[in-house]
């Protein structure tokens, strides 16, 4: 739209076309519109697959923006990072178009589009530009930027799928009918069909080819046209040329059989290869929905509305954007919690598969926290909201997944770089082949050139890596393991050693009772029962460990105690039924200083009555249940294990032996850990580091790849490549296995893409491949790559009873 001119005309006699196409009929022409589109001329809004006339003001609304934008301050300058969905993308080449449209604009620091997920990560400067003006710039190239929430809404996707199916049907149905018209020509000798009937059949074929070329092939032309304007050769350029050339030559032959194009018609080939290509593309769309579906099922968990309590006590339904911290909301059975909060009701049964990957009911008592996005499985629950939106753990998970899924792994970048010159070569080869065959056989030249154009499939090449890695990331996310960088799959698949960064990664933070020593005449059961009764009144970790150590069936024999009280920092005391005072706590509190002492200082508690010391309880950090199995599984996979601990030698050795790691390095300070890791690496070890992701950033960063266990760490601060939210050590094994399969699938895909192109192009050049077979080959080739990648989705969940689906269907 050329604004200055448009405005002048509007003042005198507005042309109808300009009014209709005017995105701002009220004359709110913005600066960006006038400057950036001036050179593009009047047709500016009529290009691309979409006519984008939105003014995107909604994207500037701060309330809306917090859903997809994160602001960060570096050197006193604020930068914003937004993740948006690009509507109207068909293939990898579109990603470049959008990136180019943004890169040179003022205020844009980085724009990266991920082709497989159609997500755009945009880093921009809020002081120089607004997101709506950037969206308008992208809109002018024929794509629409949508905020994630909106982009994922059902209606957008529904429309896209319907349109794809509709195009597929038109192409398929016309292709069938055109084939019927062409059939007589195949089975008869020349001259057997009366000339006028033959001509009638050609006209009929021509009429039915029109919707195939001008409607069904739309996506190919749109994307080829876009590339042409950018002066590039894209994935769809050869296909579009193929379609156009075939159609024009056949039309010429239909209406002027004596002309230069001869009298051969190719309507049957034309409609059929369009049908095959669209069929492949439709299945790809479906497959991509499934890949993205794993991420989307995470992201679409939050409800749109919730019931907020108003001061009068009753409930009103409000949008969750209207919630503020401190609100009390009622969450019905089967609904997701709108924010992180504390339970006000008696208790609640929730499903936290989001965090752990295990979809089983967890009971939370009054005052305990629930996280946004987890489901309420029991009756209605009242929750006081503590964190909302960006601050929730749920949002952190989503942001992390977003960032990972927009990243281009190294192998994908490489493939894209190969694809571009390859396409130019294909165009040249097609032209040469056409010219060569023209000399030999007029009738075959066109078919050969078109077959060469259609059969090449750089799509398979550029989809090979991201499709596989994304599927794996999605599958792992459903198991509660988050992947921060797709590139990390490559590093992880190549490791041969796992280093557990500290004892805590193999042990629980809760204590277990390991030994009891008693005064003569005091029974073990008796001492335990008494201690447990005292401990029951306290929340101290030691008390809880002692209380837990009494089996449930003995709980009935609890001694009767009165005047139970906690002495802060000391212990518990109470009066027994016989009037004697009993105490449980530190050595000083229980007068137990003279009792025997062992030289290690593991946590312990003492029990005393009026006659003094009764018993000593030795406690220890408990091993994680699956640590032993995980280490054994790692060894079976040919991976050596280290425990690199800052603890004392004895404690570290004990844990190391119990778990079965190959080597233990104890007493290492953070600096020493770095040195040890570097030393191992110079010995040819490729290391995966497992830590808590909080205090060990430098060590995690030094290792080839890293895991953070547990959800204690805020995700945004965790430094690792992988985050295992449930904290199971087994997650490391699962991820390693998944990474190895992923790389195997990536290699298969790349090999397939290379072999396919190497075999099919010479065949087409030699004239052994009719255009319809070329269409089938190309569609099948990119489909094979996607389907091969989808196998990874079932791998991660194989044999593990995950019922995430059951949980979501509650809603």
């Amino acid at each position, binding site marked *: 739209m050329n604004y200055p001119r448009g405005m002048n005309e509007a003042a005198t006699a507005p042309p109808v076309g300009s009014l209709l196409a005017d995105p701002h009929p009220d004359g709110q022409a913005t600066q960006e519109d006038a400057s950036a589109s001036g050179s593009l001329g009047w047709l500016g809004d009529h290009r691309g697959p979409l006519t984008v006339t939105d003014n995107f003001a909604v994207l500037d609304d701060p309330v809306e923006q917090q859903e997809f934008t994160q602001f960060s301050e570096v050197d006193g300058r604020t930068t914003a990072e937004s993740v948006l969905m690009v509507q109207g993308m068909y293939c990898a080449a579109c990603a470049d178009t959008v990136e180019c449209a943004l890169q040179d604009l003022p205020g844009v620091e980085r724009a990266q589009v991920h082709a497989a997920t159609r997500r755009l990560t945009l880093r921009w400067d809020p002081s120089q530009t607004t997101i709506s003006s950037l969206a308008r710039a992208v809109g002018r190239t024929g794509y629409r930027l949508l905020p994630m929430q909106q982009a994922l809404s059902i209606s957008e996707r*529904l429309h896209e*799928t*319907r349109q794809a*199916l*509709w195009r597929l*049907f*038109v192409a398929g*149905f*016309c292709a069938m*009918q055109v084939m*019927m*018209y062409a059939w007589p020509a195949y089975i008869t000798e020349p001259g057997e069909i*009366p000339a006028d*009937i033959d001509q*009638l*059949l050609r006209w*009929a074929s021509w*009429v*039915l080819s029109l*919707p195939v070329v001008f409607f069904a092939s739309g996506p190919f032309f749109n994307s080829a046209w876009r590339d042409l304007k950018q002066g590039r050769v894209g994935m769809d350029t050869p296909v579009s040329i193929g379609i156009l050339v075939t159609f024009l030559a056949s039309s010429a032959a239909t209406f002027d059989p004596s002309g230069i194009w001869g009298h051969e018609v190719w309507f049957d080939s034309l409609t059929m290869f369009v049908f095959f290509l669209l069929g492949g593309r439709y299945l790809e769309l479906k497959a991509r929905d499934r890949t993205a579906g794993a991420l989307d099922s995470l992201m679409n968990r939050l409800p749109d509305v919730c019931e907020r309590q108003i001061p009068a006590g009753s409930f009103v339904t409000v949008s969750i954007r209207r919630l503020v911290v401190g609100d009390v909301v009622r969450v019905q059975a089967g609904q997701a919690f709108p924010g992180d909060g504390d339970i006000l009701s008696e208790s609640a049964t929730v499903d936290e598969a989001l965090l752990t990957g295990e979809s089983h009911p967890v009971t939370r008592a009054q005052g305990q926290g629930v996280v946004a996005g987890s489901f309420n499985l029991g009756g209605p629950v009242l929750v006081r909201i503590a964190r909302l939106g960006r601050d929730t753990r749920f949002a952190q998970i989503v942001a992390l997944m977003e960032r990972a899924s927009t990243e281009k792994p190294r192998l994908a970048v490489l493939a894209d770089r190969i694809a571009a010159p390859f396409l130019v070569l294909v165009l040249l080869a097609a032209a040469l082949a056409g010219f060569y065959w023209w000399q030999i056989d007029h009738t075959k030249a066109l078919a050969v050139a078109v077959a060469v154009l259609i059969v090449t499939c750089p799509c398979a090449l550029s989809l090979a890596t991201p499709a596989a890695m994304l599927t794996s990331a999605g599958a792992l996310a459903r198991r509660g393991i988050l992947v921060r960088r797709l590139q990390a799959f490559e590093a992880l698949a190549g490791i041969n050693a796992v280093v557990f960064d500290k004892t805590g990664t193999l042990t629980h933070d809760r204590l277990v009772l390991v030994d009891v020593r008693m005064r003569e005449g005091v029974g073990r059961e008796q001492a335990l029962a008494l201690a447990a009764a005292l401990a029951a009144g306290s929340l101290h970790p030691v008390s809880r460990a002692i209380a837990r150590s009494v089996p449930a069936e003995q709980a009935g024999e609890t001694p009767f105690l009165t005047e139970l009280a906690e002495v802060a920092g000391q212990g518990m005391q109470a009066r027994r039924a016989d009037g004697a005072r009993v105490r449980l706590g530190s050595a000083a509190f229980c007068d137990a200083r003279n009792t025997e002492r062992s030289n290690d200082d593991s946590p312990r508690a003492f029990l005393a009555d009026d006659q003094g010391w009764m018993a000593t309880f030795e406690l220890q950090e408990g091993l994680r249940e699956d640590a032993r199995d995980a280490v054994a599984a790692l060894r079976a996979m040919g991976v050596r294990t280290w425990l690199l601990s800052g603890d004392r030698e004895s404690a570290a050795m004990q844990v190391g032996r119990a778990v079965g790691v190959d080597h233990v390095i104890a007493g290492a300070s953070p600096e020493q850990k770095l040195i040890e890791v570097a030393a191992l690496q110079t010995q040819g070890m490729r290391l995966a580091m497992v830590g808590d992701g909080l205090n060990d950033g430098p060590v995690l960063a030094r290792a080839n790849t890293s895991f953070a266990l547990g959800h204690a760490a805020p995700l945004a601060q965790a430094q690792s490549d992988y985050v295992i939210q449930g904290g199971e050590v087994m997650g490391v094994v699962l991820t390693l296995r998944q990474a190895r399969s992923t790389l195997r699938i990536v290699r298969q895909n790349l090999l397939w893409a290379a072999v396919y192109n190497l075999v099919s192009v010479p065949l087409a050049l030699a004239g052994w491949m009719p255009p319809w077979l070329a269409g089938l080959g190309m569609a099948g080739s990119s489909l094979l790559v996607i389907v091969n990648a989808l196998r990874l989705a079932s791998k991660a969940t194989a044999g593990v009873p995950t019922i995430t689906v059951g949980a979501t269907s509650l809603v």
Partner: protein
Amino acid sequence: MDVLYLLIPISVLLVFAVMGVFWWALQAGQFDNIEREGERILRGD
């Protein structure tokens, strides 16, 4: 044989008619969730 002059144009029109019916079915949402249609009979509502 002369009837072919009528039948061939009719077949072309028929194709367009069938596509019209499919378009209607598509817009009416009959293909939106094919998996779910089979389960619908099992659901109470």
